[in-house]
């Protein structure tokens, strides 16, 4: 039988939400009392497709 105790203990422990993306998502959760961890991530070249293609041509980064 599968041991689910580890999975269950996860649900019983404090929830820490890892937020990848706009900080405002985490802000809303924090206002509701949840702990969040913000990952400092931004899309490559600010999401500029043309710039991403040029970077790729030059070997990436």
């Amino acid at each position, binding site marked *: 039988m599968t041991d689910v105790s580890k999975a269950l203990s996860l649900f019983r422990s404090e929830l820490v939400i890892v937020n990848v993306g706009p900080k405002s998502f985490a802000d809303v959760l924090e206002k509701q009392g949840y702990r969040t961890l913000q990952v400092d991530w*931004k899309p*490559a*070249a600010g999401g500029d497709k043309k*710039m991403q293609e*040029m*970077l790729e*041509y*030059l*070997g990436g*980064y």
Partner: protein
Amino acid sequence: MTVPEKVAEANKKVIDIMTKARPVWVDVRPAIEVVPGMDKDLILIPGPPIEPKDLPIPLKTAVCGAACHDGLAKNVDEAWEMVLAGKIRIAPSQDYNCGNAASSVMSPSMPVFVVEDKTSGGKGFCVPHPGSNPRVLRWGIYGDDVEENLRFIRGDYAQVLGEAVRASGGIDLIRVLSRTAGMGDENHNRQPAASMALALELVPRLLDVDHPARDKVIKEIAANDRFFLHVMMAGVEAIMSSAKKVPYSTVMVGMGGNGIEFGIQTAATGNRWYTTKAPLISGIFLKPTTTEKDLLGYLGDSCVTEVWGLGGMSAIAGPAYLRMTGGTFKDAKERTEKARMVSLGEHNFAPVPWDDYRGFPVGVDIRKVVGLNILPISHGGSALKTGGQAGAGAAELPMDVFRKAVEGVYEEVKRLEVEA
């Protein structure tokens, strides 16, 4: 070889040039004698190209003052007319392997430090730092007293210093910097340790010079804790003159501001500038009455030190500078960490004891800056719009110049690939 392989190989070559460099200060000579391309009607200015009519007040004053100093014009008004008419030309210093800090300019008769990179063979040049007097051409101020000091520097000062440097057989700047390990300097805006280590090499040679102004020159140098900066700028330019000859490389090899625009250069495209509006330097002001409205945009080439891994790049080596300009030890650490994330090399000459003995990050890859959205930070002194120093601090380098640089290098590499 594929394009990415060629870029990787070129970048390795540039990082080797930067990290294996051995800049040695060999001479002090009039610019017209030693700077390739220098001409008797040419005045070199900091930052990217600019139309004469657009020169900000401090640079206009410095250019006209230098023209009078060189006898190109009888007075500053005549000099300005000649500049506007193109009879006196202006050009970016870094296009001539020179650096001009703050509002400094280089005219043909001015003495320059000559530094040779013994590894790559490149040569770079910079005028001497004029000392702590606030009334200097370096901050866009000109008058009889400034002219008198310029004549002293061109005359006795250059003769005595030149003789001492030549007699030394060359002063190795890596050896000087190695001695400063753990002494708390970031070597752009704070360099008493390097200036003292340089004096250790220089003063005994100066004492051997037989000249009536010898003691006055020793006093000037010994009392100037920023003396090393301009020697190092010549050293950086010596190194970058070689780095600029490496096609396909995406490494930044030049940057500076003229108060209006700020620009960078890359190895792949040499002296081509990528520019945008000059950012402001935020930090402290010398006078409580100064406000941000009084500030000119980034002015000067002294940030070539950052191009070679000093200043803001190695902020963790000089946390006291951050303390002075409103930052913290954590900020210093963060600045260097940011620089590491966008740099391809690391210096080994002055490891930082409180940073796990790591060296200064060097060689900013424009691809990483744009791709990762991480902007390196440069330290710098800020200038007043009307002339004079406002204060000191730091500026985040503008993303726009890096995006333009990626586009420029991309076009250049495409062109080379079609030709191949």
